[in-house]
Structure formats: structure tokens, C-alpha cells
């Protein structure tokens, strides 16, 4: 925008607009790109969360270098509630996500899901219990890029009926499944036989989300769901996350995008060096406070500082 004089916007192979750069703004361009008004701040309905679905108590996890990455954190997530995890990258979020999805060993602590201790369960056992996962690095963890869409759309439940029976894949069902999901989640191009790796980033993410949503999770771990996506796709992803919330799914959302965490979460925890710096509600926290927590200040200390700065008066929100 800064260097162009004129901007042509293309969508679905067609030119949808041509404007002079000085006569437009980001919102308008985004509008043209997705073909509708972009809701940058998602509206989420007020919702009363259900009973506790996930309970994590004093969780310790090591990283690849065998150092403690998650250091004794505890939290709860209720059904129909989105718990956001904020923090600067590399403060244990990745290890937390991997621990909760069975990809990484839990060294110490308890991981209770629907009243059951699932601390030592494998990925498959967790998936069997309807725990979903949208990984942060979709290219590496979420899909086999050489596999056609119809295969990636069953990854994780590929061995179960109706997709497989007696060890044999049921390609009829698999194709039908792909057809339905591609239509419902608007994957483009709408072709189940195309290797997922050949799709655009947004459409790849749609495939991943389509799969995880179609598995009907009760608890889902979502990491960096919009990294590298264009505005249209971001909006779409946000909508799907809120849909999950509507369906009473417990959601753990890890994101580097503060806006995203703030707008989607019911509660937010901030991680710093493997520990929780504090738990806040999105409408009761300022960006500045979040930033301080992300830099390693505990929420109690921040509040205390603020009190002192205001001569002991609690600040009004």
C-alpha cells in the first residue's frame, strides 16, 4: 500500500476491485479481498460455561533439550469455554500443547479429563476420548502434505469405522466424507484427490479444521490457528472456534496474536518461562498488563504496582 499507486484486488480468479492507493484504507481492501465486511474483533455471545472438562494440576514437561519447559502449571477448562494461552513464543506453550495431546511425556503432575486421569495416555487413547488437536505448525504436524485431501480428512480416525473395517480402508466412505467436508468447509479447489500440500495455507487449515471438527471433539487444543493466513481465512477460523464453543466444547487456544486471544477467550492465562503469570478475563485486562505478564511479571505484582502508582487507590476499570 505504501509503494503502490493503484491496487487491483483479485478473488476467485476475478478482479473484484481497482482503487487508487491514496483513496483507500486497510479495512476497505480487506473487504474487497474477502468479499464481505471483515469483523476484526469477533463478537462472541455471552455463554455460561458447563461443568469442568479438563483439569491440569502441577504439570511438569521437559523440552527437546531435556530442560523443564512447563514448570508446575495448573488450570481448569469448562465445557463451552475458551481458555486462551498468551505468551511470547518459546515459553513452554508448545510443550504444554504437546503434553495435553499425548505427543510429549508428562514428567510430573496430573491431567484429568472428564474425571479420568489421562496423564499417561497415548495420542491414540486421547483421540479415542474425543480430544482434538489443531497443531501450531500445520505443515509439519497437522497433515501429510503428499496425501490427498480425502486421506488427510480422516487422519486420526483412519483406523476406525466407518473409514476402515477389519484393517481395510473403505474408500467409498472416505471419499464421501471428503466430499461432504470440502463442501461444508468450503475448501478450494473442491477436489478430494488433490494433495493437501498443493493447497493454499488457508485451505490447508480448512482441511485441518474440517477434520478436527468432524471428529466431534469434547475438548480441543488449538495452537496458532491463524498463523500465516490471509484475513478471510482468519475470520473463518475464528468463526469455527466460536462454533466449537457454542457446541459446548472445551477449548484451549494458544496464540501469539494478542488480539486473537483477547477476542476469542473467556479466560486468559499468560505463560512465561513455563509458569503461569496470571489468569485474567479478556475484558478486565489491558494490553499493557498482558505485555507485562508476558515479560515475566506476575499479575498480583502488576496490580500492586498499579495500586502504589495511584497512591493506594484501586483503579477503576
Amino acid at each position, binding site marked *: 500500500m505504501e509503494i503502490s499507486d493503484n491496487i487491483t484486488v483479485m478473488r476467485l480468479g476475478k478482479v473484484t476491485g481497482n482503487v487508487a492507493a491514496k483513496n483507500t484504507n486497510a479495512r476497505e481492501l480487506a473487504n474487497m479481498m474477502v468479499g464481505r465486511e471483515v469483523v476484526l474483533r469477533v463478537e462472541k455471545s455471552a455463554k455460561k460455561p458447563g461443568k469442568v472438562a479438563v483439569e491440569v494440576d502441577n504439570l511438569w514437561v521437559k523440552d527437546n533439550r531435556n530442560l523443564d519447559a512447563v514448570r508446575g502449571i495448573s488450570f481448569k477448562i469448562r465445557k463451552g469455554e475458551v481458555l486462551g494461552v498468551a505468551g511470547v513464543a518459546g515459553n513452554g506453550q508448545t510443550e504444554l500443547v504437546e503434553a495435553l*495431546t499425548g*505427543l510429549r511425556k508428562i514428567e510430573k503432575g496430573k491431567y484429568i479429563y472428564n474425571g479420568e486421569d489421562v496423564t499417561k495416555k*497415548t*495420542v*491414540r487413547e486421547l*483421540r479415542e476420548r474425543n480430544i482434538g*488437536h489443531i*497443531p501450531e505448525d500445520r505443515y*509439519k*504436524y*497437522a*497433515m*501429510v*502434505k*503428499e*496425501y490427498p485431501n480425502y*486421506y488427510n480428512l480422516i*487422519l*486420526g*480416525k*483412519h*483406523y476406525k469405522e466407518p473409514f*476402515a473395517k477389519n*484393517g*481395510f*480402508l473403505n*474408500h467409498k466412505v472416505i471419499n464421501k466424507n471428503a466430499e461432504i467436508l470440502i463442501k461444508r468447509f468450503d475448501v478450494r479447489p473442491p477436489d478430494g484427490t488433490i494433495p493437501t500440500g498443493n493447497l493454499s495455507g488457508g485451505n490447508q487449515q480448512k482441511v485441518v479444521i474440517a477434520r478436527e471438527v468432524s471428529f466431534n471433539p469434547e475438548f480441543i487444543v488449538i495452537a496458532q490457528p491463524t498463523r500465516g493466513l490471509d484475513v478471510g481465512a482468519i475470520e473463518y477460523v475464528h468463526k469455527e472456534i466460536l462454533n466449537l464453543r457454542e457446541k459446548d466444547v472445551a477449548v484451549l487456544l494458544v496464540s501469539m496474536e494478542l488480539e486473537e486471544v483477547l477476542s476469542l477467550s473467556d479466560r486468559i492465562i499468560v505463560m512465561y518461562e513455563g509458569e503461569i503469570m496470571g489468569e485474567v478475563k479478556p475484558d478486565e485486562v489491558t494490553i499493557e498488563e498482558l505485555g507485562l505478564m508476558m515479560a515475566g511479571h506476575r499479575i498480583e505484582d502488576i496490580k500492586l504496582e498499579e495500586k502504589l502508582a495511584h497512591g493506594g487507590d484501586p483503579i477503576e476499570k
Partner: protein
Amino acid sequence: MKNKLSKNAMNILVPVTSVIIALFIAGIVILLIGKNPLSAYWVMLKGAFGNKAALAANISKMMSLVLTGLAVGFGFRAGIFNIGAEGQLMMGAIFSTIVGLNLGGVSPVFAIPITMLAGILGGAFWASIAGYLKATTGAHEVITTIMLNWIAVYLTNYFVAGPLAVGQGVPKSPEIAQSAQLPPLMTVQATTLPSGIIVSIIAAILVYILLEKTTTGYELKAVGFNPYAAEAGAISLSKNIVLTMAISGALAGLAGSMEVMAIHHRIFGDFSGGKGFDGISIALIGQNNPIGIIFAAFLISSLRTGSNAMQFAKVPDDIVTIIQGIIIFLVAADRIVRTFILKFSSPKGGESK
């Protein structure tokens, strides 16, 4: 946008062109040593397909090459480089022989499958050692399978010179029981057309079904393409590593078993003669596709059989090793070949020629 040729046509054209280019280059080499490449190739062609005996010799070579090719190719599909087909073949042969020796009074209906199974288990067992070590301790399969190859060589030598030794002359085991031998499909003078070729083809089809139609194949390929995503997709890596090695080894072991049951009826020193290593070439030429591997094995066995005859034209058979090398090199550099084909298939390229 980049070509008018379909993907399938290209998949066939590339190897075929590679073979032609390789023969052309080798032809120049033959010319350089003062021999006529055309007559050399003619003799080679006759030697590979010229008569029933030649064809039988050709097929009997092809038999175990299909299986070792499948063994290596199967491993590649799951992201594992099984360089140990050589040793697994030998272990399969040893197991088959030991079992086959003791089935004297048993009806062939039982003796044949039992002996075959012994070979399959022998190969699977040998490969599983590498698979198990990789899964539990992370020991790299290339190291362990190379070491296991050598161990298998020395074990074979030990068996045929020690506990299994019989007769004078070559250190060798006794012949396995008649009932455990696979009868030949056809006998042309001293050359037989082993019925084992049917086993090989069936094995290729089974591997194809396993890879394309079953959840096991789905999981193995996923692990091969992207172990991280596979793991996140509820696929156990260690289970699949062991399973892949076991199946890969079973195929190589079956090759050893077939050599024993259908051709030699016994084991002796230097049993494999590099068939396991040839499996690597064949898997690569066949692009790890079971059906492609059948054709690749036939190509290599034809070159080998033909090369023996080519010596009658006074051309050293080492030229075939060179040809094989160039073919595989061009398979590796398939993009060069593709570019080459596209240039010649496009009308523009045709005009400028």
C-alpha cells in the same frame, strides 16, 4: 502448465528414456574398446530372451530380485532405509533350510507353506532386530542393518562349514526334503523356470494391497511421508517402525526361502550374491511401487542374463554394471530426463531439430 503429457505417461516414459540413454552411453564405451555395440546388444538381447532356456534363466533371476526390491521399496515407503535385505535374505534361507531339512515325512501341502513361513519369519526376525533397536534406543537402521548383513554372512559361513556341513567340496548344507521343494514350472535342459516367480508376483500384489487398501498401509505411508503429522494423527511411530522392518525383512526372507525351495534346495557360502543390494536399485527404478518393482526386477534380470551371453561377443560383462548405474543415475536425475523428453515432445523442439 508445464506439460501436455499426462503424469502416468511420464512415469513410464522417464524410465524408458533412461534405459535408452544408458544403453547409448554404454554403447559409446563399447565402441571405445573397439567392439561393435550393436552386435553386442544383439547378443545380449538374444541371451536374455532368445530362447526358452534364456527366458527361464532370466525369470529365475527375476524371482528373488522382485522380492528384495519389494523389501527395500516397502521400507522406503515408510521412510526406512533397509540396507539389510542382503542379510535378511540369508537368514530367510538359513531358516528355510533348517526347517526344510526336517520335513522328510510331511506332505508337501504342509511342508511347502511351513518352509516358506520359516524363511519369512527368519527374515522378519533379522530385520526386527534393527527395527526394535531403532524404536527403543533410536539406533539408526542404516548402521544396524549393515552390521546385521555382515553378521548374517559370517553366520551362513559358519552354518555351512559347521553344524550343517555336508559332503566335500563347497561348504554347503544337505538338500532340503523333497516335499519342501517347490517344483519347477518348466525345465529346459539344466535351466528351470522356478514356480517361485508366482510367489514373487503374488507378494508384489499383496504388498500393493497392503499399501493402498489397508489402514496399515495408510499408517506406514503417513509415517514415511511425515512422521510428525503421523504421530499427531494417533499413529504410533515405534510400532510402525518395527512393523515396517518386520514386513520388509519378511519379504527379503521370502526371497531367501524361494532361492532355497525353488532353485538351490540348500544353502552354501556367499549365498546371496548381492541380491539384497540389487534390491535397492530395483526399488529405486520401480519408484517404490510394487508393480513398478516387478518391471524393474525384470529389467535388471534381463540385463544380467543378457550380459552373460554378451561375453560371447567378447564384451566384458562389467558394462552391465555401468549400464545399471547410469539408468539409476538418470532415475535419480529424473528432472533432467523430463526436461529432455519435454523438449523433444513439444512441437517447437521437434521443429528446431
